[in-house]
């Protein structure tokens, strides 16, 4: 034990006295400063009417959001609209990831599946998901189905690609380890392939989530009676910039929370990565 003590890398953090330079270098202080400066510049720009009345001041946006919490728009309060968008994303994102991730894994593991799916996928991959909006409305009408469809189209690609690449990039010698230890093909897949691909799969889910927000917003801007995209387009039609910016702010907050949730799930599923990222 004592022998290998010199091999152990220990990080000892000393407590330093609180001086100005310590405060200035503090991560949290800089976070706060950066956000504070952003709001100051925003408020000054708005107060100076740089965009005429097109840019509301921060407190006007806050007031607008507060009002929307209680006064329903098109029959729904703000939270109702948040839920409308979130629900579409959850349905589309869940369907897409449940199909695309296993399909991506299978493509990487089986060359016949790969040979059948890859040409189709490569053909459809470069098409922007928003190009599907018009045809989706023709097929499914302006209801929920067309919006969920767009989200599925948009999130399918990163889910599948990252699962596929995650498996393809596994160090081949790790399979040799399993084989040398007496493992079979299924052990290679369960013990090496899947866990090694997890981080890539989660990276794909994160990308898919942000694409899902773009998709739902675009779909709602085209036609919807609810959702955050609807609030934004309503704000434009009513010439109420505070409503538009308010919608944007809420989208940022909700999208950020959802991505935090996926990160939390990743930390739960991949505990070995926790400390690599956490420094």
């Amino acid at each position, binding site marked *: 034990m004592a022998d*290998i003590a010199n*091999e152990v890398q220990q990080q000892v953090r000393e407590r330093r006295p609180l001086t100005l330079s310590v405060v200035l270098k503090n991560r949290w202080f800089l976070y706060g400063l950066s956000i504070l400066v952003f709001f100051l510049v925003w408020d000054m720009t708005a107060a100076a009417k740089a965009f005429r009345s097109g840019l509301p001041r921060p407190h006007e946006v806050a007031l607008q959001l507060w009002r929307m919490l209680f006064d329903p728009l098109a029959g729904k309060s703000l939270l109702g609209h948040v839920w409308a968008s979130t629900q579409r994303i959850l349905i589309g994102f869940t369907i897409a990831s449940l199909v695309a991730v296993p399909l991506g894994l299978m493509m990487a593991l089986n060359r016949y599946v790969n040979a059948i799916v890859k040409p189709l996928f490569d053909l459809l991959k470069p098409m922007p998901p928003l190009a599907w909006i018009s045809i989706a409305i023709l097929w499914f009408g302006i209801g929920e189905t067309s919006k969920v469809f767009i989200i599925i189209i948009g999130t399918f690609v990163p889910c599948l690609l990252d699962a596929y690449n995650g498996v393809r990039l596994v160090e081949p010698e790790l399979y040799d380890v399993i084989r040398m*230890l007496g493992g079979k093909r299924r052990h290679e897949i369960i013990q090496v392939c899947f866990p090694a691909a997890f981080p890539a799969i989660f990276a794909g889910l994160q990308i898919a989530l942000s694409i899902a927000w773009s998709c739902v917003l675009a779909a709602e801007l085209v036609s919807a009676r609810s959702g955050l995209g609807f609030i934004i387009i309503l704000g434009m039609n009513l010439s109420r910039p505070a409503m538009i910016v308010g919608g944007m702010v809420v989208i940022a907050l909700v999208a950020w929370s959802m991505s935090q949730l996926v990160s939390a799930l990743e930390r739960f599923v991949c505990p*070995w990565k926790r400390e690599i990222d956490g420094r």
Partner: protein
Amino acid sequence: MREESHSCQAKIVCEDITKVFIQKGTQRVHVLDHISLDVKENEFVVILGPGQSGKSTLLRIIAGLETPTEGSVRIDGREVDGPGPDRGLVFQGYMLFAWKTVLGNVEMGPKLRGVPKKERREIAAHYIHLVGLDGFENHYPHQLSGGMKQRVGIARAYANNPQVMLLDEPFGQLDAQTRYFMEKETARIWETEKRTILFVTNNIDEAIYLADRIITLEGKLPGRMNVVYNVDLPRPREHTDMAFLKLRHKITEASALTL
């Protein structure tokens, strides 16, 4: 020499191994040329050769991860036709499972063979102790230094109770200090739990420190066997002993052109 090793019980028998890789469809790379060697039970044999002398390929053939173009490998008289748990392989790049703890890595072999949890925990604990990693059972590989990672690699191979240990430049990525120390540890582990060991290295000191017998390969492809040295220095050895240095000088001289 060959005569003698045949009379004893030979654990590993390599007969006339030749390996030619086909690259890009047509290009032939001749890596090994008629290599024959026997390793006795519990013998520590080091294959010494510079980079690009085919020594790792030879080890991978014995491991069953590559098939020889000509010739055959037998272990305990049984022909090798693929990788298997009778041989334990330690990799130059450690190749630990990043998603498993030290314990999870070490118990992988028994787990794949279906050993019950309680029993394989005991096996793993035993080998973790053997390599001196007590207290690190629940660490993940990225929390360990290079030397400790390779300890896990060695324990993982040992825990599967192989007949033969194959080590492929296991300390190639370590700094000089840790390397010396790991050589000492390897000798200690081998003397605690005797196994037949085939150890590949490009380091003369490492070879002399560890080996009962050193097999040198020529320095260019295709790999051919050069001189075989019996190292009958008493253990534990010292890098600065006169006899050690003499042998070192002899090997260096003999392979001056190639090493």
